[in-house]
């Protein structure tokens, strides 16, 4: 009777061991990548939010300055009201640029 079993040119045990090793390395690598990605995402997110908060502080200062200018009473600050107002055509403004 002829032996019909397939014969591999390498040891099946060695092959399986190799595959398990590669998969293990891949798995650990993937976990490392995911963890690193999560860390970077968190740090980036925090960094963006911190920058936004810093911008908000500047915006707060800008709005406070606008409010300060708006509430300034120029008469009290020593400025006199104009004696007369002269309305000029918009075209002359363009010409002065």
């Amino acid at each position, binding site marked *: 009777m002829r032996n019909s079993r397939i014969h591999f040119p390498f040891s099946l045990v060695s092959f399986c061991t190799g595959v398990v090793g590669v998969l293990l390395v891949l798995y650990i690598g993937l976990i490392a990548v995911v963890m690193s990605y999560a860390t970077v*995402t968190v740090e980036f997110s925090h960094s963006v*939010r911190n920058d936004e*908060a810093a911008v908000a502080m500047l915006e707060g200062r800008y709005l406070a300055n606008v409010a300060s200018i708006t509430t300034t009473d120029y008469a009290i600050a020593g400025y006199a009201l104009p004696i007369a107002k002269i309305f000029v055509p918009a075209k002359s403004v363009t010409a002065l640029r």
Partner: protein
Amino acid sequence: MRAQFRSRIRLVLAFLVLVALGILLRLYFVQIVNGEEYSLKADRQFASVSSGLFDRGSIYFIRKDGALISAATLATGFLVAINPQILTDPESAYFAISSAASSTISHDGFMAATAKKSQVYIEVAHRLSESAGQTLSAKAIPGVQVLRERWRQYPGVSLASQSIGIVSYGSSDTLAGRTGLEAVYDGTLSRSGDSLYKNFFAELFSNVGNLLVNAKDAREGDIITTIEPEVQTRLSNNVAKLNQKYSSKESGGIIMNPSTGAIIAIASYPTYDGNNLQTVDPKLLGNPFVEHVYEFGSIMKPITMAAALDAGVVTTGTTYKDTGCITVNTRQICNWDLKARGVIPMRQIIMQSLNVGASWLADQLGQEKFRDYFTRLFGEKTGIDLPNETGSLLTNLRKSQQVGYDTAAFGQGIAVTPVQMIRALGALANGGEMVQPHLVSAIRLNSGIERTLEWKKKIKVFSATSTRDTVEMMSALNDEILYGGKAKIPTMSVAVKTGTSQLTSPNGGYYTDRFFHSFVGFFPAYNPRFIILLYTNDPKGVQYASETLDTTFLDIVHFLIDYYGVPPDRGFQETS
């Protein structure tokens, strides 16, 4: 020997397969079946560190040059928590914390917290600045934790606060928008917060689609309002000064683009600071522009006039005999000065603000037509993007007594919200169409796409001819009557109308010595870019709106002309 080795190998392989299956099964339960529970557990364990930080989209003002300025954003800093089981020297810890934090719990409260030895985490101070938090953290006091914290910040402090709204816990245990735009656009502004917990494997197993297209990115984003911060500041300041000057109960103002319904500024007084809600009167959290109704008085007369002209019951050349007082359904209606004018043309009804004339117009219109116009103008809510909008009170127009129509013609006996009023008056400014007032122009999604909101709903109420005729009368009022003609701007046509109404008494009827003042104006009168509505409720020591609101109105007009560089619409001959 060889067979024995093979069977051993098979045994080892079977064992490995079983272990692998066991791990897979475990992973399935951990990540998918119980994933949410573990996520919550992780949240609880790290409640105050990075992952649990409050997150929310921003609300922006938009400057005239298109620059975005935050109206509501997030601030970052630190909170301080103690672990009573570890804390050994409460006195020195309290001293260190209270010197770093601007507000902390009382000494007694702190000592009571340290006595709770069964607990491991008690928060004792919030909102420490970056430097204060770093300094306290550097001291490394045993039992004192300094943790990162984020909170809602309103850089404009009280700027448009009632319309921007607030974020609070309310009756639930989650921070959410409760009033104003914060509430209306909560779905866009709120963040689910699970993005940092996203497990690649779980996502892969459960929802591949989410990895490729994130539905949240198409929903979550920032809000861009139509409010211009410098105009808003000007209006807020003027409204506050007005209210303080006349010791009014409340005052308010709206500046709107009458062609689009975009609200450029909206301010009321008293108001509140959204950054410090501990001491705020809860009544102030509501929005008077949509939640309160007022009898606006004579600024209703141009609307009555436009309705009469549009219906064709009068023309600009029509005259009527003004007797000074009339009696309708046993009630007397008089002009503000009780004087008769004799036979006068229509424009004098607006220019001299004649109640008898407005009543005469209501008579000419007839009850059915009058009701039809006023129901179209005020019968429905405006649909503005603010919460809790209330409807108008038009009960008098459902009765058959003529006096209800005659008084409504000059703005008494019917009550509408300020937003309804400016929308109706806007129809006079833009050729007869009511636009939809709105505060948000666009949503900037997290995906990077900016979605422009459509506010195209328009209701045609008056013909262009009738509104133009009415605007001419209002413009003449500004040029000839207001400030004795000194309010006239040679290079700019401005249409105005003042309104003074008696306040209703809780005992029925009206006060004879308490008033509601209103003022409306728009410019350039025949192609307006801005319509301004001002009001002050129960000002002391003055009777007429022309005494209280004209200065404020004119200041805003001149400011807007300068700020936007509005070109002249009259007064100059073109030269080559």
